[in-house]
């Protein structure tokens, strides 16, 4: 198997190398890729969409249809992880609780149906140490991370950034909460149902904007149709349309990241993660 694998790899590598002979030189400004389609994006973006960040303009407008499906891919991955892993039904097994005033940890066997409350706090089986420094440090960081994420989404027109990047950062902030405290705390902030519905809503904002354009008489995802709704000229409407769909992307990506993390880290039981 190893020899056969090596042979296959060398053969396909040789085939790929063979083709590089006829590639244009690296960084050549007169290569076909730089001359055929892309110059129009660079030269016309400002007058056609009023977005200085060309990548954002191409991503969400010229090839916005790709991006809609890209968001759908993420949404689909979230649904697949849920479908595969989520264990619905009561949780069983042993639990650890900490008595808050004294810091004593107790071990409850067969805790199904029972739960201690009041002065007791449930803790993860594999994560018994109580670390004030980590909790506090993360608590301070999380709001700043979230504000930065919103900046990345909102400023995607002018600087590197946009819905995907901002959404991932937003999702990371919630995942950080889940890691520094525990999964149950994160779930109390943003529950399973909320995540699942937000995920669908995010992508729906994208596809719905496209469908709105269609309903207003232009082609699907032709944001210029939004001009009459937004009360602007068609070019600015494109810029605003991009912002709307980027927001949708941000929501969808954030929710899906959290959803996948919740399912994968707790193997679908939603009680104890990592």
């Amino acid at each position, binding site marked *: 198997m190893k020899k056969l694998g090596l042979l296959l790899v060398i053969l396909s590598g040789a*085939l*790929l190398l*063979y*083709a*590089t*002979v*006829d*590639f*244009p030189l690296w960084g050549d400004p007169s*290569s*076909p*890729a*730089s*001359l*055929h*389609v*892309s110059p*129009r*994006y660079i030269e016309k973006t400002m007058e056609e969409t009023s977005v200085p960040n060309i990548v954002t303009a191409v991503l969400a*407008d*010229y*090839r*916005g*249809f*790709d991006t*809609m*499906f*890209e968001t*759908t*891919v993420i*949404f*689909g*991955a979230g*649904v*697949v992880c*849920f*479908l*595969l892993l*989520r264990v*619905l039904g009561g949780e069983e097994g042993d639990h650890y609780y900490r008595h808050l005033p004294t810091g004593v940890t107790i071990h409850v066997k067969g805790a199904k149906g029972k739960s201690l409350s009041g002065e007791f706090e449930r803790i993860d089986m594999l994560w018994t140490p109580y670390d004030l420094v980590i909790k506090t440090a993360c608590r301070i960081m999380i709001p700043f991370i979230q504000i930065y994420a919103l900046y990345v989404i909102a400023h995607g027109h002018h600087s590197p950034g946009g819905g995907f990047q901002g959404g991932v950062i937003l999702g990371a902030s919630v995942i950080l909460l889940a890691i520094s405290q525990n999964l149950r705390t994160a779930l109390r902030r943003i529950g399973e*149902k909320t995540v*699942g*519905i937000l*995920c*669908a*809503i995010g*992508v*729906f904002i994208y*596809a*719905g904007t*496209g*469908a709105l354009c*269609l309903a207003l008489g*232009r*082609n*699907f*995802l*032709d*944001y*210029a149709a939004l001009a009459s709704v937004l009360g602007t000229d068609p070019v600015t409407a494109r810029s605003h349309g991009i912002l709307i769909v980027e927001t949708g992307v941000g929501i969808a990506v954030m929710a899906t990241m959290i959803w996948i993390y919740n399912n994968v880290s707790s193997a679908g039981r939603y009680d104890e993660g990592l």
Partner: protein
Amino acid sequence: MSHHFPALLVIAPLLSAFFISGAGWLNRRFCLPLAVASLGVAGLSALSLFWRVVQQGPVLYRLGGWDPPWGIAYAVDFLNAPVLVLICIVALLNLWASHRQVEEQFKEKTGAFYTLYVLMVTGLLGITVTGDAFNLYVLLEIASLSGYGLIAMGEDRAPLATLNYVYMGTIGACFYLLGIGYLYIVTGSLNMADIARILPGLYENKAVLTALIICLVGLWLKMAFFPLHVWLPNAYTFAPVPSAALIAPLMTKVMVYVMIRLMLTVFTPGYVFSTLGINDAVVWFAVIAIVMGAILALGQRDLKKMISYIIVAEVGYMVGGAWLGNRAGMTGAILHIINDALMTLCLFLAVAAITYRMKSYTFSSLKGLIRKMPFTMGAFILGGLSIIGVPPTCGFFSKWYLITGALQAGHYGFMAALLFSSLVNVVLFFRIIEIGFFEPFNEGHGHGEHGPEPMNEAPLSILVPLWIVALGLVVVGVYTSEIITHVLQFAIPKAIL
């Protein structure tokens, strides 16, 4: 509104996926009606597009209002219009047949299942309708990802089989993406028609040749062409029946469509058949695929695995036919996409009915089944006859065109392989008839009473769609010549004689 049908075709199932997902959390009763409604809208759009293409010729839709090389365009022509209709019909019929099993099997997760089901159909429709090479990759990933989810919910070994499918499928999709990158680096374009316009000046370029080869290898992985088929039998066997009956008829066939699309529209027949001169080699690969698929099918002891290996052989038919390089072979290959999808659906729906009653699909559970489930087995046998290629079922006609193509090309190996596989199919299906008719019903299973078994048919919600498909096999067979003269002959460029 009729102007927007190409968009509506993909958008209706896509939007409904989000609603179904939401309904899965809030009120599960709405999931099925939403799925049916959206697939119905897609089906109507596909039908009216088909009609418009037949009446007025190809349709182009510019998404986002941008002109093709810069924006993404949808192009409906004589080649993909029938495939679109086919996808919608298969998806709807299977949904009708399997909704009862889905609700029993998935319970709280019904919403997630239907979401993925609809997403998978979205992906397949998008792959078929798109005129942009990169857009095709994105949609391919949607179809594959939702397919992984649908397959992995099956029996005990399903996750392992699916993980193997994920590995192979990812390599396949990445190879396709890489091939598109190689085309992009030498042409600077991603639009299929635009690439085809630029390519003639670059036929000597090594990157174009490599692009063709890696695209083909990627697609062959995805369509389970013989040495690359190892993921398919386990994945389809262990998948839950409702998913298998959607994925098995459509996924491989749509991949064959993509291959033909690349050959005819992107690389153009002149390059693929004349400049390269690799058709003979590919047809010989197809011969091996057919023979090996048939032999492996002979060795199986359960229905689903047997059908899976038959699919491997059928993929060989289509690849071989497409690469024969003449009109008859190409017609046969395209016709076989439609026919094979219907035949596979027919067989899998019959398997669904059998598993619904017997809770098993091994050969031993088929004993006495023709008396017990006569309608199911009748449809199954009709599907089998079509796979064997008995007139007037549709399987006969596509095989006829393939054999004619092989004769015209002087490729007797391919002809022999087709005849051999037909012979093996005869053995396969007559063995099942023998088990079902002559062997007595399993004693341990029944109540020990002798004499004829009481009839215990599958519910009508499975039987009706099953018989629609089974009769569809005959109807498509009878109308083959109309399909070819009005649609398929325009799909094949005049350059192919």
